[in-house]
């Protein structure tokens, strides 16, 4: 990981690599934030805390990136809206990428990435989370 990342990002990644996906909440205006900032972009106050989100959300939009089977095949890229209201780019696993639909309820999990880092992915809510 480049060493030039902002300290807030480093904190986020350090937690993520220990299996905890955190977002921020402003103690002043109560807004939730993702991705992490070093002060609240809604009220400008320096009053952000890390919180663990509920971990549930909904697929806000989705695309299947087409890739040759020998390169690993098609994969999902989705934007997930967490129940806290923030959105992030992620991937829905546990079903054919073509079956991922907008509006689908999903549950967060933290899994290893081939890069050696951990990353956040989502599975359909209620589905068996074993990959």
């Amino acid at each position: 990981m480049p060493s030039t990342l902002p300290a807030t990002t480093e904190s986020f990644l350090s937690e993520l690599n220990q299996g905890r996906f955190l977002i921020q909440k402003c103690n002043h205006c109560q807004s939730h934030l993702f991705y992490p900032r070093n002060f609240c972009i809604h009220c400008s106050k320096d009053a952000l805390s890390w919180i663990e989100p509920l971990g549930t959300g909904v697929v806000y939009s989705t695309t299947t990136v087409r890739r040759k089977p020998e390169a690993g095949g098609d994969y999902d890229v989705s934007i997930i809206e967490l129940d806290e209201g923030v959105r992030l780019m992620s991937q829905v696993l546990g079903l054919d990428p073509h079956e991922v639909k907008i509006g689908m309820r999903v549950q967060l999990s933290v899994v290893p990435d081939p890069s050696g880092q951990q990353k956040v992915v989502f599975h359909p809510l209620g589905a068996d989370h074993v990959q």
Partner: protein
Amino acid sequence: MFNDNLRAQVSIVGVGTAGCGEAPGFSELELLAQATRLALEDAGLTLRDIDGLCTANLNNAMWPLNVVEYLGLRPTFVEGTNIGGASFIAHQKPAMLALLSGQCNAVLVCYGSNQRTSKFGRRERAQARNLLDPNVFDDPYHPFDPPSSYALMAARHMHQFGTTRRHLAEVALAARRWAQLNPEAFQRGPLDMETILGARMISDPFTQYDCCQVTDGAGAYILTRSDRARDLKQTPVHILSNETAVWHKGVASMRDLTITPAAESGPKAFKAAQLTPKDIDVVQIYDAFSINTILALEDLGFCKKGEGGPFVEDGAIGPGGKLPVNTNGGGLSCVHPNMYGAFATIEAVRQLRGHAGERQVKGARTALINGNGGVSASSQSTSILGVPDTLH
């Protein structure tokens, strides 16, 4: 306020394009310089007259310096803001302010790219940009960008409003039909609905036909105060307004994937121009992807939000349709050398001068240009142009 009195005070007096399509062996600066020479010749000016420069590119951190040195300029006004491909439209307002304040007298807006044929390949450039500007929140998911980000916007638009792949295809078909009338266009071959709908997906719902061309090309145009423009070679094309809005960088940070910053820049541009969408004769929209045209038509007020799909049905924006859009063939079929804003501007000027040959929109007196920038319609810049007649 000074800002309220810009209408028609500045004009586009010269335009030039060079190397559109494939221009093997030329550097970006060489292509840019060719387009600049043609724009100067078109205006009846020389490099000695140029004392203002607007330019940007994707590969050089201090690109205005490269251009200043190559062209031997000594500008008193330099604008190097880079908000993506909309930049060369967004440059207009600062240039207008500089011209009207007397900071300079003739501004060159210019861009050149050899992205298609350069030996230093697109893959290496993309890797270099990612290295310099990492996104640790998106990169682990490998969006195939820019297509994937715009595909996510298109998918959401389809979900909310019932927009279909056929609607997206109508945009690509209209662009191709215009391109077939434009000798400068890169893709002029036959294309039909079935070919588009049957094409291989790249990032759903997009096939290659929903994505802009990857071409070389350079575009340049020159601005002066309108009082001076009257004495130059060409009929001046007045800038009635230019407004820019910038809302985000990445697609996950958009508040609503179906609304672009053109919803801010468009209404402001119409207000400043004292015109409405129904007054516009010809429209140039930066169509990086088919969905861009639909989103912009909605955000600019040519139709209601969500009705862009039905609006483009039945060839409505193609030759002979109810609203001529992207009459050069757009980024989808004419030219797209990474950043397209200058080319949309130049096509609007050619239409308003009556210089557009077979694709000429008869009697065009007003034009709207809408620039798009970034990987998810992050910036939008809208200008409304007119000819001296428009003011009466």
